[in-house]
């Protein structure tokens, strides 16, 4: 009965496919590459490309960052989109539906093939049975063998991935504490890889060796306290070692004594949707106070210029740091959570509105040295946002440059002060206004909040 149902199922779909093929001879050729057809129908010009690029990367505009232009390939697709939208006024090319339909059909075809193969196996098993042979397909053997193959292929795959992806991913850290993190990372990787390999050899090996043959009974072995103790204690010891190792490294990174912190180069990073502002402490190496209530279009950070140490604060277009000198980042946010992340330096700290966070590190290699090491003249250190923060999250970056002390000084001299002439005017105006209204203001504040 069930068999007949199957046939119906199959014939119906064969019919559907046959009709589709009749309706459209080259169906599958097009299903193979749906975008090819679109490229034929639209002409792309370089102006349009440029237009599309700027439209496509609005987020980049807000950061005012030129790096966004570094999207080298494939922008013709954007231009297609823009153009299609302009030309067709939202109507969708019927070809789109057709292509989609072909993909669906293709999938059904695969399903039918799977169904047929299934039937063949079933028929094969039935005939074996009717011929009186004891065994049908031995599925236990089948899976046991597959597990053995998985073991070899999987281990090789993991090895290949380590080698191939690993070399893509792994770069020497460019900071001093990063070195310690890296050596711990390597230790952990070695230990976990050994465990990974051994346990998988056991898991898949046992699956292969102890597959049921129908001739054997399993070995009744409910427990063995000694073995269980061993494999509780050994991981516990290994983990203790890792924990201690980790704990002290962590403390050494995060627990910076106050005087050391004060001597470091002070840099403040403030995140907002979707840009970063960099503020250097200036001559006095002190970052002036801020209060969100003081924010104006001119004074974007709400710097409090009553605090004189703010007068020499310098706005950095990028993050430029002298090599080998400790730098202490103070991290802030104007709106929501962001995360200040510099993977090359093994630095990450969230930017939290209303709460300054800190991270101190010492860069080891200049950008030029790193370029040489990596044999990549294009290389640049980056700082990026790692905490989900909205539409532009994926492109909220600053270039980081590590240079010699001299170059750093030179660069810093070219940067502008926060306390510019316009800001000074604004500050003076507010001060004189304040004197008169201060008391009234305070009252109002009390009422409002």
């Amino acid at each position, binding site marked *: 009965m069930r068999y007949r149902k199957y046939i119906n199922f199959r014939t119906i779909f064969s019919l559907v496919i046959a009709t589709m093929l009749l309706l459209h001879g080259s169906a599958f050729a097009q299903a193979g590459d749906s975008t090819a057809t679109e490229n034929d129908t639209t002409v792309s010009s370089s102006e349009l490309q440029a237009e599309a690029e700027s439209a496509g990367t609005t987020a980049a505009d807000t950061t005012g960052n030129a790096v966004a232009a570094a999207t080298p390939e494939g922008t013709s697709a954007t231009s297609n989109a823009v153009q299609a939208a302009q030309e067709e006024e939202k109507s969708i090319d019927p070809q789109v*539906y057709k292509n989609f339909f072909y993909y669906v059909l293709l999938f059904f075809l695969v399903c039918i093939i*799977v169904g047929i193969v299934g039937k063949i196996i079933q028929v094969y098993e039935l005939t074996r049975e009717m011929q009186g042979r004891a065994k049908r397909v031995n599925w236990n053997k089948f899976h046991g063998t597959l597990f053995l193959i998985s073991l070899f292929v999987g281990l090789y795959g993991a090895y290949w*991935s380590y080698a191939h992806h690993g070399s893509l991913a792994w770069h020497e850290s460019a900071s001093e504490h990063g070195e310690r993190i890296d050596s711990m990372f390597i230790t952990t990787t070695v230990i976990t890889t050994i465990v990974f390999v051994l*346990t998988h050899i056991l898991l898949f090996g046992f699956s292969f060796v102890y*597959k*049921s043959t129908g001739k054997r009974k399993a070995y009744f072995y409910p427990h063995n306290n000694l073995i269980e103790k061993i494999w509780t204690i050994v*991981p516990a010891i290994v983990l203790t070692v890792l924990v201690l190792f980790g704990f002290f490294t962590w403390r050494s990174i995060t627990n910076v004594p106050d005087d050391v912190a004060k001597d470091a180069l002070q840099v403040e990073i403030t995140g907002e949707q979707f840009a970063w502002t960099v503020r250097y402490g200036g001559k006095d190496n002190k970052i002036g106070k801020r209060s969100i209530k003081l924010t104006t279009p001119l004074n974007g950070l709400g710097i409090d210029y009553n605090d004189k140490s703010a007068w020499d604060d310098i706005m950095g277009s990028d993050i430029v740091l002298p090599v080998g000198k400790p730098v202490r980042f103070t991290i802030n946010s104007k709106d929501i959570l962001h995360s200040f992340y510099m993977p090359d330096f093994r630095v990450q*700290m969230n930017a939290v509105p209303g709460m300054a966070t800190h991270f101190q590190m010492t860069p080891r290699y200049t950008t030029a040295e790193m370029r040489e090491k990596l044999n990549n003249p294009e290389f640049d250190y980056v700082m990026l946002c790692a905490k989900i923060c909205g539409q532009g999250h994926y492109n909220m970056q600053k270039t980081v440059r590590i240079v010699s002390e001299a170059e750093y000084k030179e660069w810093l001299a070219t940067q502008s002060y926060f306390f510019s002439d316009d800001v000074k005017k604004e500050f003076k105006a507010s001060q004189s206004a304040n004197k008169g209204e201060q008391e009234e203001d305070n009252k109002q504040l009390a009422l409002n909040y």
Partner: protein
Amino acid sequence: MSSIAIPHAGDHGHDAHEHHHETFLTKYIFSQDHKMIAKQFLITGIIMAFFAMFLSILFRIQLAWPEKDFPILEVFLGKWAEGGRIRPDFFLSLVTIHGTIMVFFVLTAGLSGTFSNLLIPLQLGARDMASPFMNMLSYWLFFSACVVMISSFFVESGPASAGWTIYPPLSALPQAIPGSGTGMTLWLASMVLFIASQVMGGINYISTVLNMRTKGMSLWRMPLTIWAVFLTAIVGLLSFPVLVSAVVLLIFDRSMGTSFYLSDIIIGGQILPNEGGSPILFQHLFWFLGHPEVYIVLMPALGLTSEVIATNSRKPIFGYHAMVYSLIGITVLSFIVWGHHMFVTGMNPFLGGVFMITTLIIAVPSAVKTFNYLATLWRGNIKFTPAMLFAIGLVSFFISGGLTGIFLGNSALDINLHDTYFVVAHFHLVMGSASICGMLCGVYHWYPKMFGRMMNDKLGYLHFWMTFIGAYLVFFPMHFMGIDGVPRRYYSFTNFPFMQEWLTVNVFVTWAAIIAGLGQVAFLFNFFYSIWFGKKATQNPWKSNTLEWTTPVEHLHGNWPGEIPTVYRWPYDYSKPGHEDDFIPQTVPFSETMSSNLPHDFEGDAVAEQIQREWDKEHGVERELHH
């Protein structure tokens, strides 16, 4: 140790049940029968899983081909994919809802809800749950939560898009992202309903386990499935209410102008009046649930696989007591490790150090469980049913994902790995893949109990191998992206030169995901086809020891037609030496298995030992009765 079992109160009243009429509505919709409720949870969970999987394919397409148009997407998604490209904010919505549905609706409700409901009464010998009515409510609250969550796709500003962890201020301020408007309100409403459902379910599971075990079913004779769902329910009951408080405070911040999580914010050029709140507070509250939650997801899966591995290796689970104590250890420890999600959020770094220590301790019970699984397979007589394949899959994923937890649990290493693809890889292996494998293992294994029919084996095999290989291909390479410093929840990789080398990997991963996703259709078809056309099941198709296989294939309200069976032994007497069959159900008394009894079977019962000794003498058997 004495048994706390109380004879079931429903025994007398039971006959009355046969008379009352069941309409379609009371049988299939507002059912109070635990088996039907289990099926409702399962089918709802499967539908949600496919929905969430579809979302993931959408954002994988964006990640693989960020520069290409897919006009068909506009057909489905309209303005959210104008010109055939997913918009960045909608991308974040997809990620958010995918995560939420998978974690809460599929792996929490779909997994616990299904198997706690199905197995607690059946494996413990109870006629139903302690409170069938509350059980029904639990399902319908869950169902409403699902409806509300999905309805957020139909609001103008789109679904919630602050990530499944909905950190404020992003989730609190509609100015920050459109999804934090109505979409987030719906998210929060849905979550409150969901938690109410979980709490009702949890109370029910716990009280049933504690009070309604059949005669002889002492705690130490409970199958590991029951231990797992029992402890899971405890974890849930203690942690979910904390999420409610987090959610309620967030609702206040959003709509009543309070400042629990908000302070010093300028958004859209406007200075907000909120002062004194802390976004970190939300993270503490969230992860106080959030970390236990990951074990809520995992423990039932471990329980199911323990049972399936023992049954299909035809061996007792190795170290039953150790398995239980590991579960208890995980239960307790899971409450004191939440800070490992917050190492670099600005939490006091010393606290970070403390959380690192507790976190790495929790790896010990996890390791013990793994080794015990391996020891159970050793010298087994392994039958590769689809359920068994998925159980082995779980062990593999649990190992791989657990090992990467050791990196992340180390706060110093986490500096560079936090919020990168490494984390994505970690939890998709240890939680996503492992728990899904556990759930599928449970579905294949208990399908005959639920629907009275068998699923097709061969489709199951196909399904397993596609899922298993697919999941590794998808998630393994992600570790390396994380090590390279690629953050998660990035809409595209095109703006950073160092990420562009991962674009080809992204294409590969997306193809693997699509193929693995299509492989799930084999399951979907198999599942629904077999409900009506599957081969009829026999009473005990896997030759299993536990009580559920003593009930008739045809469901009846109250589970057992006559008296509830009494339990005499633990559930793992597989391949016991001296016994003819390779399994001895829990309902078989020791007096019927004189040839295979072992010293510890008598638990120090002197009379029983005496009888055994006499029998031994009669049959000339030498056996050591004391140990």
